[in-house]
């Protein structure tokens, strides 16, 4: 039997044990860990997923695993949140009551703005903080010997046959970090340090991967951002048109008009790009692979490549990528797991300094 002796490289352990702390301090520490789980501890592999997932990924969890983000990346998502919140606050303070109290039925436009703004915020939060479709680690561990050495065969690209109606065979690859044979269309994100199902890209603006489980929210976020910008534009234009005085009487309306005009374009271009991508049944990663990663995918013409995942028609492809059910979370941050779960063990020899002793 083999025993594992671990030499800890951490100067201070982050584990929380009841014996070391009095009751009050123990509960306080538990509460703070529930509030924000910044990093994992290889010695703690028990309890809920949010405590153990940081052992093997770059995720940070909030409120007991209800929300997540990625550590070490620039917090651009805070800027996006500001861009979403700012016009609503200004509109509510300076514009709403003026449009609401008119006799011409502009109330509908006000309600529509708030509705689409709420969808924008909700879908942004869900895109940025939910599980994009993370795949579990170490499921396809080959052997224990030589510090879990990966067999030579696992370094090969494997070609497997597909259905007779599909033109090409499929190639699959073993992820040496996650120790799994990756399913088609999934890939390893080096920022999050996880493999993601139907991986589209890692979005720096939401600081999360866009994958099978949050692609729908991402598209809804882009579309609702475009629609709420257009409605904001219309609302401010109506206010300006109805005012009899000069620009000095409606400075916020002019500001919001310009703001909506500017914030409309980026999500609109991105959404159009994703419609074409989804319509040709391609993920951003697959598209980039085709055109070469140096080019900006948004400003490159989307062409229909020979694609084994193609559903035949543009609408079918569009519906499939946009409407596909999310499916279950395979590495749930909220679910309890058993002690010593292999999914949350970092077996990478470069980081763990583990030594196998044969008896």
């Amino acid at each position, binding site marked *: 039997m083999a025993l594992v002796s671990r030499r800890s490289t951490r100067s201070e352990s982050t584990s929380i044990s009841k014996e070391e702390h009095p009751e009050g301090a123990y509960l306080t520490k538990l509460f703070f860990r529930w509030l924000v789980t910044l990093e994992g501890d290889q010695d703690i592999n028990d309890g809920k997923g949010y405590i153990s997932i940081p052992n093997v990924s770059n995720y940070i969890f909030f409120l007991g695993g209800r929300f997540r983000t990625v550590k070490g990346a620039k917090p651009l998502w805070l800027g996006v949140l500001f861009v979403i919140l700012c016009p609503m606050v200004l509109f509510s303070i300076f514009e709403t009551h003026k449009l609401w109290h008119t006799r011409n039925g502009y109330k509908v436009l006000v309600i529509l703005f708030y509705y689409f703004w709420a969808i924008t915020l909700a879908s942004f939060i869900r895109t940025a903080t939910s599980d994009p479709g993370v795949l579990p680690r170490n499921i396809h561990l080959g052997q224990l010997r030589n510090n879990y050495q990966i067999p030579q065969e696992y370094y090969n690209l494997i070609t497997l*046959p597909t259905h007779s109606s599909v033109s090409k065979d499929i190639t699959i690859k073993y992820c040496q970090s996650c120790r799994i044979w990756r399913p088609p269309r999934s890939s390893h994100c080096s920022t999050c340090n996880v493999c993601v199902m139907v991986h589209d890209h890692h979005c720096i603006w939401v600081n999360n991967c866009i994958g099978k489980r949050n692609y729908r929210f991402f598209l809804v976020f882009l579309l609702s951002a475009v629609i709420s910008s257009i409605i904001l534009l219309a609302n401010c234009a109506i206010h300006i048109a109805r005012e009899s005085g000069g620009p000095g009487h409606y400075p916020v309306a002019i500001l919001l008009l310009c703001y909506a005009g500017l914030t409309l374009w980026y999500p609109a271009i991105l959404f159009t790009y994703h419609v074409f991508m989804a319509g040709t049944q391609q993920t951003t990663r697959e598209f980039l692979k085709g055109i070469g990663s140096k080019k900006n995918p948004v400003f490159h013409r989307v062409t229909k490549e020979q694609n084994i995942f193609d559903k035949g028609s543009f609408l079918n492809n569009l519906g499939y990528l946009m409407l596909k059910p999310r499916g279950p979370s395979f590495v749930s941050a909220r679910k309890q797991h058993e002690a010593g779960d292999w999914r949350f063990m970092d077996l990478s020899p470069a980081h763990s300094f583990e030594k196998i002793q044969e008896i």
Partner: protein
Amino acid sequence: MCTSHQREEDSATTGERALFFNYHEFSYSFYEDLGSKNAKPTEHDEDHKLCITHFPNVYAARGSSEFQVTRVVRVPRRFDESRSSLDTPQFSTQLPGDEPAAIVGDDERSGFVGFGRYDTGGHVFGCSSVSPLSDHLSAAEFAEIVCRVNEFLLREEGCVYGWRNMCCLVLDILTGGLWSWVLGPLLSRPVFQESLVLEQYVAQLNSPGGLLYERGVRLVLPRRSGCLSLDFVVPRPE
């Protein structure tokens, strides 16, 4: 000994369609022969390489007794039996060792035949793609179980335009996304517990009276393995 993997690679280069095999298996030539006590590992020729068909049980903690006495046989995903298998996980319905490009041993005995010991713990492996699962389940029993699992997975994930998915979409639009986020999981657990039927089926197989329980085998819930492979926990072969 037939080197089927090599044959498969050759066929790919000549433009023919690839042949399916269990890509989890790998071979190893430096091992201890079975039968002689205190045998030292020796190098073996190409025809007598061990074929590793069962793996550490990653569903039990490393120090646990279950980990010591059990192994996992992995049934891979297969992409050639239906078009939908490219998108929805569908597993091979052939027992490991029966696949078109499986490594066939020259031993005429049926089932799993051990040749040598390998890996930490000295586990027994054979020289063909046949796994210890063949000692517990017949090809027909195995195919029936995998077909049912495949069917449940298709029913859950394949229905993009099914009523449940469409209703969730409409409710999401009406509630601004709150339905699937907060309201739905609180109000209606079965609607959001997609794999409830599959979970029940697996639990029935593994519980007393179930086929697998009687054979001393356990099927791992596909959700637990991320649908990456269909894993059977089998007793450690001796």
